[in-house]
């Protein structure tokens, strides 16, 4: 047995409850690692269905899951129960939003960030700081990834480091720009290693810097962030104003009457860069555009994006599906 954990540490892991919020690339590597590490209770939250393009990096799923169109949370639960029958694994098919996030993480000792968008991460940050639950930020794109541990009250929170979510349509996404398995595995592994330290009561060993990795350049860096907390200006962890939980910055979805479609819109003023968005979308579907809108057929959806970033996703009446399509292909 690894001395850093030891029998006492293993016993503690068996009593721990971890929530994986999002079970895509990072989430499936993390859930797999944590289940095998003997985390007593693992809750896996995801809103999506397994698709063929996921298999290149999302290690918990296979072609049968694609064929059966299984929700990722269900497929992950089934797989991990076969991996470790001694732990309690629960998959929740759910779209995390301001109304349910606190219930989703209630009672957790730690949350692993496997979200595919900033809106959910800021929400998670608010909820975790509010309830004093550590969470571990992780994100990847291309060959690059980063991770940071947030221990409320001890380390900077996400809002100490990044003031707010980037405007819609600005960030490249894995589904338009690609991501390779090695960086996913590295970042999720870093998240899990830090999780194991925290869950075995060794917070003093946790790396409190932000770690960035580029596996293509074989470069790993640590960025000091601890000073950011001391500025005392963070609305979230210094002033305990949970603006994301209060839905002040939340995207809104409206199921449009008459059409099989959902509109997703954002409260803050943005102007989207049609050139950049259409260049990214060209990788997944045919893009048509004029001065006022941009359309792209993606899978079974027709997505129309307007100048302020709002979009109409045709082909569904489910807000969670529209949010997922937006996060994957336009980016929030």
């Amino acid at each position, binding site marked *: 047995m690894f001395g850093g954990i030891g029998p006492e540490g293993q016993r503690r892991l068996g009593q721990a409850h971890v929530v994986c919020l999002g079970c895509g690339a990072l989430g499936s590597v993390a859930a797999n690692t944590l289940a095998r590490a003997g985390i007593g209770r693992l809750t896996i939250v995801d809103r999506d269905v397994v698709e063929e393009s996921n298999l290149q990096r999302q290690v918990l799923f296979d072609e049968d899951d694609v064929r059966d169109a299984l929700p990722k949370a269900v497929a992950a639960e089934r797989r991990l129960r076969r991996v470790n029958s001694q732990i309690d694994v629960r998959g929740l098919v759910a779209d995390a939003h301001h109304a349910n996030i606190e219930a989703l993480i209630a009672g957790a000792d730690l949350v692993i960030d496997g979200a595919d968008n900033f809106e959910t991460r800021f929400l998670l940050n608010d909820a975790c700081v509010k309830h004093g639950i550590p969470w571990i930020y992780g994100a990847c794109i291309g060959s690059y990834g980063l991770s940071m541990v947030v221990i409320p009250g001890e380390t900077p929170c996400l809002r100490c480091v990044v003031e707010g979510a980037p405007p819609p349509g600005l960030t490249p996404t894995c589904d338009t720009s690609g991501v390779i398995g090695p960086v996913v595995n590295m970042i999720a592994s870093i998240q899990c290693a830090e999780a194991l330290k925290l869950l075995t009561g060794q917070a003093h060993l946790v790396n409190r810097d932000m770690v960035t990795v580029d596996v293509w350049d074989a470069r790993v860096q640590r960025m000091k962030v601890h000073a950011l907390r001391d500025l005392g200006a963070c609305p979230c962890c210094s002033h305990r104003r949970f603006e994301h939980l209060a839905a002040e910055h939340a995207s809104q979805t409206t199921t*449009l*009457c*008459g*059409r099989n*479609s959902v*509109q997703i819109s954002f409260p803050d003023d943005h102007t989207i860069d049609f050139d950049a968005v259409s260049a990214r979308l060209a990788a997944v579907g045919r893009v048509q555009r*004029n*001065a*006022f*809108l941009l359309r792209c057929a993606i899978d079974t959806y027709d997505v*129309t994006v*307007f*100048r*302020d970033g*709002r979009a*109409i996703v045709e082909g569904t009446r489910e807000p969670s599906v529209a949010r997922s399509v937006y996060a994957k292909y336009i980016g929030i």
Partner: protein
Amino acid sequence: MTYLDNAATTFPKPRTVHDAASTFMQTLGANPGRGGHRLAAGASRMVEATRLALARFVNAGSTPERVVFAHNGTDALNMAIKGLVHAWHRDGRTHVVPHVVTSVLEHNSVSRPLEQLAADGVIALTRVDCDADGYLSPGVVAAAMTPATRLVALTHCSNVLGTVQPIAEIGAKVRERGGDAVFLVDAAQTIGVEPIDVEAAQVDVLAFPGHKALMGYPGTGGLYVAPRVELAPWREGGTGGDSKHPVQPGEYPHRLEGGTHNTIGIASLKAGLGFIAATGLDAIRQHETRLVSRLLDGLAAVPGVTIHGPRTAQRRVATVAFSVKGYASQDVGAILDTSFDIAVRPGLHCAPYCHQAIGTYPDGAVRASLGYFTTDADVDALADAIAQVAAAS
């Protein structure tokens, strides 16, 4: 922002409306009719003065107590429709299923309660068609009535097409044909723009919102119930006086006004009525007629635009529904908002049968609805934007 969604609610409201609401809440904000103290009495006076002004506004000034406050047009319509059904059950004349006539032009606030009652077997429902321009024919309405018809529920004006219906002619036909059939009119799109005379049009029940052309705040509305109509209360509760009564008192307006009034809203509505009186209903109507004429001309000149309903400014309010070739209505609405800062309403406008009738179901249409504060420049901005959008298709 160019606001062209006045059919949903008027914006902006006159300054005097905000002043009146604010003054009321800061000086008299007590519960009207509850307790005899000075503030309650003052609040009561304000409420009763508004009731009287509303009654006079629709020519029911001799029976102001028959005008009751509601929370919006939908609330008033539900009070009317469900109140009638309840009263029919009480009077025991339901051995023949009561028959109701309505039209394809109705808003869901009429259609949905009636459809549910029909689905529950409580009423039999006939929905009459409109003509190609979106007008109802008095003859067609009368022909749809049967000996079992107890209610004719029609809109005064299509909220999609803006077509003002000949309610006086329909009212006369209903009375002639129907005996005790109740003529219910939904005046959501006309009150405050078109003259309404419940006597002359033989309207038995008139439902209206207070927040559209009447310029009051959202959360206001009203219902006029003619003395010949028996309506059971749909909402029961405290009325201030008569507390010992085990059930809702029979006298109007208390019969239909259980619960605390929306006094801030009623104060705003009073000021809205004052604004209309000072401006003149004719002047308001003429302004909107002139503007809608300008808009119709502007849109008709754009290749690829289809105007739904009549092309003329007569017999209509300043609401225009149209489609732009190459775009879904929702896309046009989003483009106008995001690229031109113009607010319109795309979709089905809570009136699915109307869109079926004009062939725009299920995509719907773009609706621009003008108001008293709309300017020539606003109308031109819309026509110009639509020209650019149509050209880019």
